[in-house]
């Protein structure tokens, strides 16, 4: 009886031991399950079609081209491989300028015929209309509606998920925004963090250390939303004033906040690494007449370089995944950043800001889950490289 009981408990413990692995597996499964539908979605908004004149040889347009056409940045069919004709954009609400309400009939019942007439009558027209208004004997032809392609998403330069008729799901601005803000954050945090780590592990006496340690623990315990709030109220106006900008919510504000948030990780991990440097090595260096400072940068730091690297990489991971603070201070403009003094938008901030408004199961919703997948794999990559770096140290 006792042995059975022991076995049962052991089984339960074993199961919970695999809990984390199972969780990661489930995360992969569920994120992919929600995200992959995006590539089955059509480029043009669901339930709508794009119709052109029968004489028009253009068969299909990419999402970016459609957007340019409807933003009137492309105004001639020649640019799209068609005849030399002015593009005339037609949306359903324009129909009242062609036909009176009587001609359209009650509840738009005659609208299909009217749309047909409009499309047939203008060789340069492109009409964005609900597919239910297209009759069988429609006198124009419909542009082919491809599924959203991999390239359009990962190489797309525009993120504009609510655009009509073709929402833009280009990840490039978000990915570059994330990397850009994290890069600057690490640029600020690295010299700072390393100095503190060296000071704590090599220079400071016991009392100073036991004062600094809880300070750093506390710094890592402050919730990100409080950092965001502090950044919004204090750092953003400061930056706006210092650089004389129209808005203070910039990549720089995000980088500063992220740098503060990444500091505890960098400090703790690299301090641990330096403490692991054997005493004998230090003493040998000192005995050869090197000063303490020379010992630090010629012996201790080279010895612990892989530990320091893990600390930095973990700090980068923390910066890339940070959501709330970045969401609150970076201004969230989805453009590919060129300077650090303009608003930008990161992957986590996009998910946090938009998922609430994206209808479940729609293309926008799936695109946000795909962003989650991207984020997941970036952090996995980071974790594995940390694993790799620290496994090399142990040998």
């Amino acid at each position, binding site marked *: 009886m*006792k042995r059975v009981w022991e076995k049962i408990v*052991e089984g339960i*413990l074993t199961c*919970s*031991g*695999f*809990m*984390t*692995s199972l*969780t*990661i597996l*489930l*995360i992969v499964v*569920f*994120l992919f399950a929600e995200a992959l539908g995006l590539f089955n979605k059509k480029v043009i908004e669901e339930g709508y079609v794009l119709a052109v004149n029968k004489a028009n040889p253009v068969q299909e347009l990419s999402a970016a081209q459609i957007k340019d056409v409807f933003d009137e940045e492309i105004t001639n069919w020649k640019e799209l491989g068609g005849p030399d004709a002015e593009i005339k954009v037609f949306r359903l609400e324009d129909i009242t300028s062609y036909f009176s309400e009587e001609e359209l009939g009650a509840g738009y019942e005659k609208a299909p015929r009217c749309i047909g007439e409009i499309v047939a009558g203008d060789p340069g027209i492109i009409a964005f209309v609900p597919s239910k208004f297209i009759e069988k004997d429609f006198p124009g032809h419909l542009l082919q509606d491809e599924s959203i392609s991999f390239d359009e998403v990962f190489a797309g330069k525009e993120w504009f998920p609510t655009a009509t008729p073709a929402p833009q799901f280009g990840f490039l601005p978000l990915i570059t925004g994330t990397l850009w803000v994290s890069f600057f954050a690490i640029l600020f945090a690295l*010299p*700072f963090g390393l*100095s*503190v780590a*060296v*000071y*704590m592990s090599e*220079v*400071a006496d016991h009392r100073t250390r036991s*004062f600094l340690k*809880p*300070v*750093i*623990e*506390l710094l890592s*315990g*402050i*919730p990100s*939303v*409080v950092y965001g*709030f*502090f950044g*919004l*109220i*204090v750092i953003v106006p400061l930056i706006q004033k210092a650089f004389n900008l129209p808005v203070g919510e910039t990549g720089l504000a995000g980088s500063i906040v992220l740098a*503060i948030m990444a500091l505890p990780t960098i400090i703790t991990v690299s301090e641990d690494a330096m403490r692991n440097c054997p005493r004998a090595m230090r003493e040998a260096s000192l005995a050869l*007449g090197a*000063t*303490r*400072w020379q010992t630090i940068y010629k012996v201790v730091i080279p010895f612990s370089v892989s530990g320091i690297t893990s600390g930095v990489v973990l700090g980068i*991971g923390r910066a890339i*995944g940070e*959501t*709330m603070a970045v969401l609150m201070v970076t201004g969230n403009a989805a453009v590919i950043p060129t300077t650090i003094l303009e608003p930008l938008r990161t992957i*986590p901030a996009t*998910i*946090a800001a938009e*998922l609430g408004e994206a209808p479940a199961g729609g293309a926008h919703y799936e695109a946000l889950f795909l962003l*989650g997948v991207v*984020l*997941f794999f970036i*952090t*996995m990559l980071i*974790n*594995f490289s940390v694993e790799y770096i620290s496994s090399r140290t142990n040998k």
Partner: protein
Amino acid sequence: MKQDVFPAGQGVRKRRSQWLAFGIFKLLSYSIVLILFAILGFIIYKGAGVISWEFLTTAPSDGMTGGGIWPAIVGTFYLMVGSALFAFPVGVMSGIYMNEYAPKGKLVRFIRMMTNNLSGIPSIVFGLFGMALFVKYMGFGDSILAGSLTLGLLCVPLVIRTTEEALKAIPDSFREGSLALGATKLQTIWHVILPMGMPNIITGLILALGRVSGETAPILFTCAAYFLPHLPHSMLDQCMALPYHLYVISTSGTDMESQLPLAYGTALVLILIILIINLSANALRRYFSNKVKTN
């Protein structure tokens, strides 16, 4: 000819560069303290005037421009308890398995790697996952249950790691002594190992609670409500939460003038909760380590 090993000039230069380097390190280290005190001081200074009994015990009113934060405090408390109920048993059992049962070698390395990976996953990804699994697939809807489970998963790695470290610190002689007296492995763990490791485990659990109480991203889509006039009735209700409330009133709204003091107050309450949690964990650690020494 006898060479001068330490020419005077070089020695001075060496000492000067050391003095400079150490000076910079010291300066930067103390500026970290300054940063912390700046953040804490700013929020305490601005928020202290807002906090009153009424602020703590009433619901927001006048479209989030007046009233207090009572429902948010209660919501955060529910979420902390809910996630603790899920994460603590799982995490502690997993830690026991890793340290006491799992065969050393590849398997433990694999599990530890997975645990590290899980703790490195951004909280917003947990939010997405919680929404897909708990809210939609399991059909809990936006609820305290879904939010607690998501937050629980988030802090499981932390609980595992602290449990493992606590157990690792116990010398093998205790295990061997107990086994030699005829106790089974389970009895040894239950009567010897766990009581000895308990102080450190509890400290870790308290710190995990601190982490949970401040997280916003995982509850955005699984639980948090913008405003609820009443307290949640069951595990399947939505709830307000302090961090989300702070996010909402500091970023959206029509009347920033009157919202800002409330935001300071909310931030202060949140910071105080986390300070109390951290300090009590530290005090507990010190108390137990003293007790062990004097015995």
